[in-house]
């Protein structure tokens, strides 16, 4: 840092600047504190709208109720399944696609045809309705595979990965070739071990993506029983889906304000990401710069 004379104008600027930045920071954090406060408040306080940033009439009732709420637990289970299976499959396809495409024309003559084949999909897509029809016709409707298979290959992530593979010194590959290794073992034993930082980056992008997506659940799941967590949360928000509320719920709902229950569920849907993202931040920043300007 340079040394600056602290003139009166500079001091005034600093005060205004810091206050402004603090306000913006609050705008990003306070909504979540409010959400938590409502979810921990008594029904009466929540329905009256008297909760601000601190619980009024503190109670864990809403969270206790969620612990036995089958819809919530079931959708959480679907999400966990989807996150694990989906991330694993996505990553595998990213490796398998990025490796051949990272070769030069001399090493892989057909590379350019494959590149075009994949690149076209980044420019043109069939759109919502034809995609829906194809997913339906291939028999994936109402199964967890509808949330995994259609998006199993992210071309964008494969491009990030192949750019990283290209940065690996050719010597390493040639040494392995001389030792008699084939492409499969070069990928697993040479490329992947040295690519851990970018694997972590792309893996985290993918994982958060699977945790967060909700619209595909609405689109491809006929039965709310198969909704992943975020899809289930979206129905609470839009309340387009009345069939989610069961009879047992109704009696409890009379005691428990809908508001505390809803905020508790939304908060839990955000919690895992809120807990890990400060640590993931640096990977994300790295991933963002991997994809930007190349010299």
């Amino acid at each position, binding site marked *: 840092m340079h040394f600056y004379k602290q003139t009166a104008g500079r001091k005034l600027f600093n005060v205004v*600047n810091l206050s402004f930045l603090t306000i913006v920071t609050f705008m990003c954090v306070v909504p979540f504190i409010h959400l938590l406060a409502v979810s921990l408040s008594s029904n009466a306080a929540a329905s009256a709208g008297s909760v601000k940033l601190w619980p009024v009439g503190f109670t864990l009732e809403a969270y206790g109720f969620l612990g036995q709420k089958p819809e919530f637990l079931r959708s959480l289970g679907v999400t966990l399944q989807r996150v694990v299976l989906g991330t694993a499959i996505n990553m595998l396809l990213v490796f398998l696609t990025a490796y051949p495409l990272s070769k030069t024309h001399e090493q892989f003559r057909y590379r350019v045809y494959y590149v075009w084949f994949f690149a076209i999909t980044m420019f043109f897509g*069939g*759109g919502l309705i034809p995609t829906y029809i194809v997913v339906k016709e291939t028999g994936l409707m109402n199964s967890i595979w509808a949330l995994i298979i259609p998006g199993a290959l992210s071309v964008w992530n494969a491009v990030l990965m192949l750019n990283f593979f290209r940065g690996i010194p050719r010597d390493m590959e040639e040494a392995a070739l001389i030792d008699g290794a084939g492409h499969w073992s070069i990928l697993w034993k040479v490329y992947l071990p040295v690519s851990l930082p970018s694997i972590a980056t792309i893996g985290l992008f993918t994982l958060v993506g699977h945790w967060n*997506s909700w619209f595909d659940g609405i*689109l491809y799941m006929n039965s709310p029983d198969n909704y992943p967590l975020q899809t289930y949360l979206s129905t609470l928000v*839009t309340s387009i889906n009345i069939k989610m509320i069961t009879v047992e719920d109704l009696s409890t709902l009379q005691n428990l304000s809908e508001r505390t229950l809803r905020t508790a569920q939304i908060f839990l849907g*955000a919690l895992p*990401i809120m807990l890990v993202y400060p640590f993931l931040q640096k990977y994300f920043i790295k991933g963002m710069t991997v994809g930007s300007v190349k010299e």
Partner: protein
Amino acid sequence: MKLKKELPLHLMLIPGVLVTLIYAYGPMFGIVMAFQKFQPALGFLKSKWIGLKNFEYVFHLPDFNQVLWNTTFISVMKIVFGLAVPLLMALLLNEVAKNWFKRMIQTSIFLPFFLSWAVLGGIMIELFSLKGPVNALLSLFGVDPIMFMASNNWFVTIIIASDVWKGMGYNMIIFLAAIVSINANLYEAAEVDGAGRWKQALHITLPGMASIIILICTLSLGGVLNAGFDQILILYNPIVYEKADVIDTFVYRLGLFDQQYAPAAAIGLFKSAISVVLVSLSYYLAYRFSNYRIF
């Protein structure tokens, strides 16, 4: 010999090619339904061809022009403010001397970026409800409660502002990285010449960021017809359709609620056709001005 050596590379590409062929090229082929009197039972191949009738039908729908205007307006506003606000934030944050404070602000502002619209939509509805904290705050100033989410005057503003709020952290970090990479000698030279902080920001920092600003501008050009589908879908309601209905939400309701698959696909094709031009143009401009390449 050569083929044998390259065989593993072809094998690796099989899963990615299959998924892309079925779920990216399949829907592209499925676009033919836009020219058919599509019947799900008959499929893409046997449905009756009706030429441009679907297009005639949708272009004459009374809401279509409004939807087109809404889409362009919302997304242009999102691009402009989504660029200007983080730029301002990055410049202001750069003036903060204390590193821990900088990091704290950066981390807080990044939080909404990682969360889904299912969660954020729930928070927005909670914040802006009649008994929510925003109305409570306004009532301190004697303002009568406003139904933000059901007001054609307010809804679009909230859509744009909340999108800027969610994406702020991402662009801000890209801008900060650009500022850091500016040669420190330039600032020292300016100092010697007697330029204050304001002049330095204007004549060194901003020009130094020009290429990244242009890059982000051009890359967002490709998305002008994507006004933020999942955000609007979760937040809107029939009262605000007039101002908030965009191409994607219109296609969704027309296709999947009214089951008018073919007309909906026709709008989808209309959108894809314009988008492919815009995306190609944006990549071309990004390449021309910033030497940006995807492959």
